[in-house]
């Protein structure tokens, strides 16, 4: 491998890391939005909101890093993938607009709080669904014509992408519920345990369904997963997910505080590894590899310096902000 190949791989990992950080961090924010209708109006909702109010903005920034990083490190992929996913991307952006302003507006305007609560939920569900659809659309493949997208406006809409869209909604709900378990006490926490059970079951079914459907998409996913020697690498992934699921149910059973959230993160990480196994080294399945899409070495090196210095610092002060707002969000309320 030349130095360029290494750089492209490094950048593929950095962007994968940014997307993963986005998925798990904003995932629980969006999950709380998805579960919002299940919370009692008033204190229960306010409390759920308060667990994420200080951190949601930083969580969402990983999405900008994912998109911006893709444009910078793999401009050709950015230029092909985004037009291919035009409607879901626009829907996601509009959903995030409603979700983001609802945080501020619901405090400002108690008379219309009910409306902003609906906007918060609708925005969160729309964004989560659109992200899941985008993921599925990328997995099932994108038509390429030269250096541009070569398909139609609705190519992204298939039964498979509807499935991945709904799966991401369920997964985010699980993240939100387990986050609330960690951050609340008393009646609110009991409610969160109930929600975690439900969303846990649905998420596991969804993971199973997507995992079974993916190898039968018309790419070489099947051979990667089910033939020697690939199966030696791939077999541990579903086995680990099964082990983690068992641990998750036991953690819920003995009312662990932080373990359900951490185990959910681990499940998400494994799903991510599975995605990586399916896709690498393609960035557009069967069409464009990371090396074909890569920006010139000087662009990638210049950014690598910045990313190498800044990402640890960002993780440091983001961790500090989480530390400042650590602990349960108050036991009062819930009379």
């Amino acid at each position: 491998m030349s130095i360029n190949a290494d750089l492209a791989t490094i950048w593929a990992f950095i962007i994968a890391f940014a997307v993963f950080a986005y998925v798990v961090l904003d995932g629980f924010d969006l999950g709380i939005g998805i579960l919002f209708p299940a919370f009692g109006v008033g204190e229960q909702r306010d409390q759920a909101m308060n667990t994420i109010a200080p951190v949601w903005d930083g969580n969402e920034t990983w999405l900008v890093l994912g998109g911006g990083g893709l444009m910078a490190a793999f401009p050709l992929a950015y230029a092909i993938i985004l037009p291919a996913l035009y409607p879901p991307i626009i829907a996601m952006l509009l959903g995030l607009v409603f979700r983001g302003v609802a945080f501020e507006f619901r405090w400002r305007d108690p008379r219309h709080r009910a409306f902003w609560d609906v906007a918060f939920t609708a925005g969160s569900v729309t964004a989560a669904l659109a992200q899941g659809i985008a993921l599925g659309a990328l997995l099932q493949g994108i038509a390429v014509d030269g250096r541009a997208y070569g398909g139609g406006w609705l190519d992204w809409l298939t039964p498979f992408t509807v499935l991945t869209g709904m799966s991401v909604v369920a997964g985010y709900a699980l993240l939100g519920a387990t986050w609330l378990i960690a951050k609340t006490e008393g009646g609110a926490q009991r409610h969160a345990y109930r929600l975690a059970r439900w969303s846990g079951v649905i998420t596991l079914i969804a993971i199973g369904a997507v995992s079974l459907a993916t190898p039968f998409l018309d790419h070489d996913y099947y051979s990667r997963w089910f033939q020697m020697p690939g199966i030696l690498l791939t077999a541990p992934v579903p086995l680990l997910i099964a082990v983690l699921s068992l641990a998750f149910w036991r953690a819920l059973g003995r009312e662990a505080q932080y373990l359900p959230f951490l185990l959910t993160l681990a499940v998400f990480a494994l799903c991510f590894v599975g995605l990586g196994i399916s896709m690498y080294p393609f960035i557009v399945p069967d069409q464009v590899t990371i090396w074909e899409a890569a920006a010139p070495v000087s662009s990638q090196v210049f950014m690598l310096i910045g990313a190498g210095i800044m990402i640890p610092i960002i993780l440091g002060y983001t961790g500090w902000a989480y530390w400042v707002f650590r602990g349960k969000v108050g036991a009062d309320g819930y009379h």
Partner: protein
Amino acid sequence: MFDAFDPIVLARIQFAFTVSFHFIFPAFSIGLASYLAVLEGLWLRTGKQVYLDLFRFWIKIFAVAFAMGVVSGIVMSYQFGTNWAVFSDKTGPILGPLMAYEVLTAFFLEAGFLGVMLFGMKKVGKGLHFAATCCVATGTFISAFWILSANSWMHTPTGFEINAAGQFVPGPSWAAIIFNPSFPYRLVHTVIGAYLTTALVVGATGAWHLLKARRGEVARSSGPIEPSVVAANPHPTASGEAARTMFSMAMWMAAVVAPVQIFAGDMQGLNTLEHQPAKVMAMEGHYDSHPDGAPLILFGLPNAREKRVDYAVEIPKASSLILKHDLNAPLAGLDTIPDDREPPVAIVFWSFRVMVGLGMAMLGLGLWSLVARARGRLYDWPWLHRAALVMGPAGFVAVIAGWITTEVGRQPFTVYNLLRTTHSASPLAAPAVGASLVAFVAVYFAVFGIGTWYIVKLIQKGAEAGEPEIQDAPIRTAGIAPSPVQHPTEVQQ
């Protein structure tokens, strides 16, 4: 439904609309973040309650404006890919890293410390809280640095090579790309513009409450409001001291910075003349070359068909004086520019005049306030206060007019003289772009209109003496929501 439209025109309208809407919020929050840092610093140094009151008052407004800036900004970061894929592919190796640096060095800094700034005063103590406020303010600057570097490169591209795939790729020096010829001028002009914009909003807020107090004679007495006045008025006016402090600080800013801004704008104009002469020709309305001194057209109607300015009101030779510092210096006109490289004159001509006219009005307001201050009448001249109130939104209009001038003046190119706008777009279908444009327009007007209305309501209420941290929300210290009903006394520092 949109089949009759040109998809590229729709995509351009969409970009213009979303970026104009977006920039309103950073223009405000760059200045406001600095103002908040100054207020908190003054409070820590002097211990005066009025600075803490003002800090707590403006931070609520900042929170709303910042949220709107964030969500409209995310739209921008994805719109390059959805609507301008060819541009993204070709310029990604150069502009991508600049924007990635913006995320890494600015956005995370702002977002990471915003939570502590908004809700963390009691958790981390005064010193660390002030540090968080300063981090957020610093983040707004760093953000301006990178995004204006990227934008400036589109106007004055340097330090690049073109590879076999037709992409702009970095040459040997990133410094040549980042510090391209128009960047220093644009950065200074834009940041000062943001400061002026914020100063005018703060000044209008102070003026509004001074005018209101004239009717109730409240604000001129210092200190908190008498209970009897509150009882008579369900919407108590701001503390008089807060209103006066705001107005005074804002008028200093206007008086000092407006002339600096006019100078900085002039410098940028000369830089533009050097690198983008066609843009300046459009700004000036010079269809014809003037070999011996060009007139300054104050007003007129640019006539694109006849290639002249109808009904022009001119000052002879003044344009040459401004641009060349010589009455008789020759100035080329658009007759020297091929038609297919000419920007749309009328838009540039008018937006430029709006910007300059408002700049002059800001200068006038600043000078007027100096006269009032010199006579010790700063808080007593209602006409000055009315003028400041009317000028409240002027900064936003001037900033948007300035952006229209520079961006439309770059047409018909996205990368000046190298990449045409018509060759930059994604393979778009008009119905998709049209539908998303309608959705953006509807959502933006509704959501940001309501947000702006909330800000106006907050401004009308004003800063009260003993301003509580967060009134109508559970107090979010430690993310704790105690019972929603809180007495202000419980949340004092």
